[in-house]
Structure formats: structure tokens, C-alpha cells
């Protein structure tokens, strides 16, 4: 019966971000937070595997203390307990730091057969935390997973790559990072929402880990990308192709 750890990140909900068109500044003061999209798939996959094979599911998140809001949300989706690793300095972690913190928590404390992460987070999408964590734990890792099946002491996965599907098998313990098409996360029912507050949460601070965490990633500014429309019109005749190419050259789109 697999003991599963699923990792998730609490991120700004991009749907709430407003852009001031003249200054391109982002308005973030009314932004809500959510469990990063693909991490919802990771949690769902863990819970499905548990429903099928038994075992346990633990949710783990690393973030600033304000990410406490995420715990009931995560627990309402099925995991039976959560590890909340938090410190004010965790607001802008780099993937390497997040992976190091996760590894420090998991190493001495948690027994596991499988770790499921999302392929990348909705905000940075660096796709690094999963593979780095596997490396630090010294376990095999498969990325881009869109199918997952447990078979004895191994896990069979399908990786969706640009040029095809790769099927591989990994010995447990292992780590996988999943794509959104692996499943459709279910909506938690109201009883699950109400039960989430009664599930155990383990708070772990930086001190408990004996780590220090220096902020290395420093956001100096964010501006919205804008699309400037040139509103050029071309005919559909053969002779117009030349004009299209000329225009693209002139705009520097092609060289």
C-alpha cells in the first residue's frame, strides 16, 4: 500500500490580476490565491491512487505564513494530513531553495513510496522543484507524466513528450511530475470542506530544519506584456505574399 507525498504551491490567482493599460503596472491588491493548477492534478492523482490501492496521502507545502489559508483547501481534496513548512523569508523562493527545504523535511521525517508534484507552478513554471527534489533524495524521477499505474514495487508511467509518448517503469520510491491531462480534479464536497479543518497539520519552521534561507530572487519590477496591433491588411493573391514578407521584415519579425 503506497505511502504518497504530494507537494503543492500556493500561488496568486492570475485571473484576479488587473493591468493598468497606460502604465502596464499590475494591480495586485485584490488578488486571491489558489493551489497551483497542476498541483491540483498531483493531489488528485495521489488521492485516486490511494482509493485504488490503499495507503496514505500527505500534502506538503512550502511558503510564507500567509499560505496557511491553503491548508483546508488542500486537505478538502483528500489528503489526510498536511506538512506546512513556513517562514516569512519563503515569499520569493527559488526552485532550488524550495527543493532543498522539501528534501530537508522529507528526509528524516517522512516515509514514502511515491512523491507526486505538478509539472510546474502556475506562476513561475520553472519545472525544477520536482526533478531537484528527486536528485536531493537520490530517487528516480519521471517528468511530463500523463498516466500513472502502480505495479507491485514499481510504478509504470507514460510521459507525454513533444515527439511522442514514452512508457517507462521506475522502482519505488520514486518521484513523478504530472501534466494536467492526467486527470480532472474533482470538486470537494461540502462535508470534505468541513472535515478539512479537523485533519492534522504539522507546522515546521526554518529553525526546526536547521536551515537558513537567504532571499536570492529579487523581483525589481513586473510590467504587463502588451500586444500592439499594426492593423496591416493584405490581399490574398500570389503577388501579396511578397508584401507580407516585406512587412514582416520591416517589423523585424523575420530576418
Amino acid at each position, binding site marked *: 500500500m503506497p505511502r504518497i507525498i504530494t507537494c503543492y504551491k500556493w500561488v496568486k490567482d492570475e485571473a484576479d490580476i488587473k493591468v493598468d493599460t497606460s502604465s502596464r503596472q499590475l494591480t495586485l491588491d485584490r488578488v486571491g490565491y489558489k493551489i497551483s493548477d497542476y498541483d491540483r492534478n498531483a493531489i488528485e492523482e495521489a488521492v485516486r491512487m490511494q482509493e485504488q490501492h490503499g495507503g496514505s496521502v500527505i500534502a506538503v507545502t512550502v511558503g510564507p505564513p500567509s499560505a496557511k489559508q491553503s491548508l483546508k*483547501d488542500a486537505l478538502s481534496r483528500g489528503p489526510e494530513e498536511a506538512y506546512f513548512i513556513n517562514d516569512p523569508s519563503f515569499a520569493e523562493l527559488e526552485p532550488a531553495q524550495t527543493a532543498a527545504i522539501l528534501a530537508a523535511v522529507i528526509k528524516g521525517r517522512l516515509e514514502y513510496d511515491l512523491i507526486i508534484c505538478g509539472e510546474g507552478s502556475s506562476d513561475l513554471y520553472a519545472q525544477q522543484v520536482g526533478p531537484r527534489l528527486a536528485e536531493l533524495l537520490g530517487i528516480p524521477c519521471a517528468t511530463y507524466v500523463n498516466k500513472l499505474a502502480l505495479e507491485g514495487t514499481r510504478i509504470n508511467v507514460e510521459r507525454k513528450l513533444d515527439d511522442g509518448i514514452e512508457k517507462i517503469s521506475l522502482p519505488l520510491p520514486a518521484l513523478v511530475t504530472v501534466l494536467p491531462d492526467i486527470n480532472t480534479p474533482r*470538486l470537494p*464536497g*461540502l*462535508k470534505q*470542506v*468541513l472535515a478539512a*479543518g479537523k485533519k492534522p497539520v504539522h507546522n515546521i519552521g526554518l529553525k526546526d530544519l536547521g536551515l537558513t534561507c537567504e532571499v536570492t530572487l529579487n523581483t525589481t519590477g513586473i510590467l504587463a506584456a502588451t500586444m500592439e496591433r499594426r492593423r496591416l491588411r493584405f490581399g490574398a493573391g500570389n503577388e501579396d505574399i511578397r508584401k507580407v514578407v516585406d512587412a514582416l521584415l520591416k517589423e523585424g519579425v523575420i530576418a
Partner: protein
Amino acid sequence: MDFRLTEEQELLRNSVREFTQQYLEPIAGEIDEEGRYPAEVVAKLAEMDWMGIPYPQEYGGAGADYLSYCIVVEELSRACASTGIILSVHTSLASWPIFQFGTEEQKKKYLVPLCKGEKIGSFCLTEPGAGTDAAAGTTTAVLDGDEYVLNGTKHFITNGPVAGIYIVFAMTDKSKGAKGMSAFIVPREAPGLKVGKHENKMGIRASQTAEIILKDCRIPKENLLGQEGQGYRIAMQTLDGGRIGVAAQALGIAQAALDESVKYSKERVQFGKPISANQAIQWMIANMATDIAAARFLTYYAAWCKDQGLPYSKEAAMAKLFAAETASRHTSKAVQIHGGYGYIKGYKVERLMRDAKITEIYEGTSEVQRMVIAGNLLR
């Protein structure tokens, strides 16, 4: 004082929003047009534990509060007001009187399947000759051995054609007027219960409204709810809670009108600029948003009073009155903002305007709400 919802209520709101995006928004226009009851969606409401939100888990409910229930009705109605009222009648008009006045056996037998969504509930008070003046009802109940025999016709009954359990009000002693009215739990299988004419409505067309005909309808004596003569009081107290649900429905409709108006006014270009650049449009939107905020506070406050065990009859009437009139007024403004397009089927605001009107009529007209409020103030 705390204006924040609890984390659980926020999570619930988010899941209802996702639910409506997935299951309700895509079909709401179509089921309105066809007048089709969304049985498949109602089945899903049960899977989400939303069919018995404010009732204890031992009776199959979710064990949450009335405010949570309002949030669900509001968010469902924002997508589809028909689904909002299906749930509201089921929860506050049919399940609540059993929860509040029922015996332990009645709760086990009838409240549990309602809360689990195995059966749909309905509330049968109105008759052709007895609307606002509900005590003028002519349906009778006569005790015959171990059974009551019911005779009469109820009309405009929401969920009538789809219900498994009906709360029926009938006179056990006509000479006593309102004090001669009693409440009964009537299962669908009761011999003599028939669904009559279905109404073809202006709005909330996906909710089913029909006549319920009782002809020598026999039910066991134990299906009397409360005592003989308590019926009118049960009906009025039930409607007090129901009104908070209708206020939430109206609120959802009004919010949808605002959502559509903001979106459309920014997209629609006339005279070389979005129509939202005109102050005339901006003022409509500002008024809409302000009234909606006020309606939301009144509605949540009434629900909160109910949850706290405080009196809520006046608060519920105020919430329903204000939310209903807000919905009617501003869905009409939303159509105005959409211009000719707003008058055409397929644009959501056209449906919203038709759906809004009923909230000023059922579970007590706006005139009745004013009577309740004034009655509370002047006694």
C-alpha cells in the same frame, strides 16, 4: 464585527463557482428555452453534499450553517436561477419544517432522504383562491381511523412534478380559520395524489411548477407535522427562512446582471470608444454594484441571525424585499446597457430580467414583505 466569510465558506463559494462553470453555465440558456428540469445537475448537487446543507450529518445533511446554504443558492442562481430555487424550496420550504417540527421518526423517514438528495422536496400552501391570504385555503384533512384523508387542489407548486415528499397544508377545522390549519408530510406514493397542470412560465423556466391535486388522498395519521391547528404557524415560520433563500437567489441574479454589464460595456464600441466610457453607463453600473452590496449584507445578516438563534423574521423580509427589487430593477438596467442585443434570446441578460421578476412574487410578494416589516415595527 467581522465582515469576512470563514475559510470553509470561501472554499464552498469557490467550489460552487467551479461547479456552475462546469455544469450549469453551459446549459442554463438551453434548459430555460426548453423548460427542462435539470435532473442531471440536481443529482450532482447531492454528490456535492448541497441538498441538506444546514442540517446535521446524523440526518444526512452537511452540518454547515444557513449562511453556507445562502452562498450556494446565490452562486447557483448567478448561473441559473431555476436551479437556485429548486434547491431553495427543497432545503428551506420542504426539509426545514420536518427538521424543526418533525418527530424523530419523521426525521429518519423523510428528512434523511431529502438531505441525501434521494428525494426532492416541495411545499404546498398556495391554492387558486388562497395566495397571499393563505389561511383562506379550502383543502381539507379529515381523520378517518388511522389515516388522514386529504381533499383539495394546490397550485403554483415548485418541484411539484419531480418531488418525492410534499409538505401539504390543509384545514382540519375550517371554523377556526388560520388556527384550523394543519401541516402534513405526504409522500409521492400516497394514493390520491396527482400532479395536475404544468405552468408555462415567464422565467425560472427550468424549475417545474404545477398543480398538486389531492383526491381522497390517504396518509398515515403519524404524518401530521406538529399538532393539529399548528399548520399556519408552521407555514409562516417556514416562509421566514425560505425568504432568506429567495433573497440569495435574487442576489445571484443581480450579481450576474452586473457581471454581464461590466463585461459587455467594456467590449461594445460606439462612437469610437467602449460604451463604458460614458458616464451614463458608469452610473448605472455604480448604482447596480452598490445595491447589490447592500442586498448581500442584508441577506447574509438575516442568515447570520438565523444561525445565531436570534429573531430573523423582519430581517428575512427586509433581505428578500430589497434583494428582489434590486434584481428586478438592475436586470432591466442590464438589458438597457446591452441595447437591442439585450432584448434578444441567447444573451444572458434577457433571461436574467425574466427570472428576476418572480423573486418579488413568491414566498410573499413585496407588499407582504412590507407588511411583515411594518408589523414588526409597529406592534
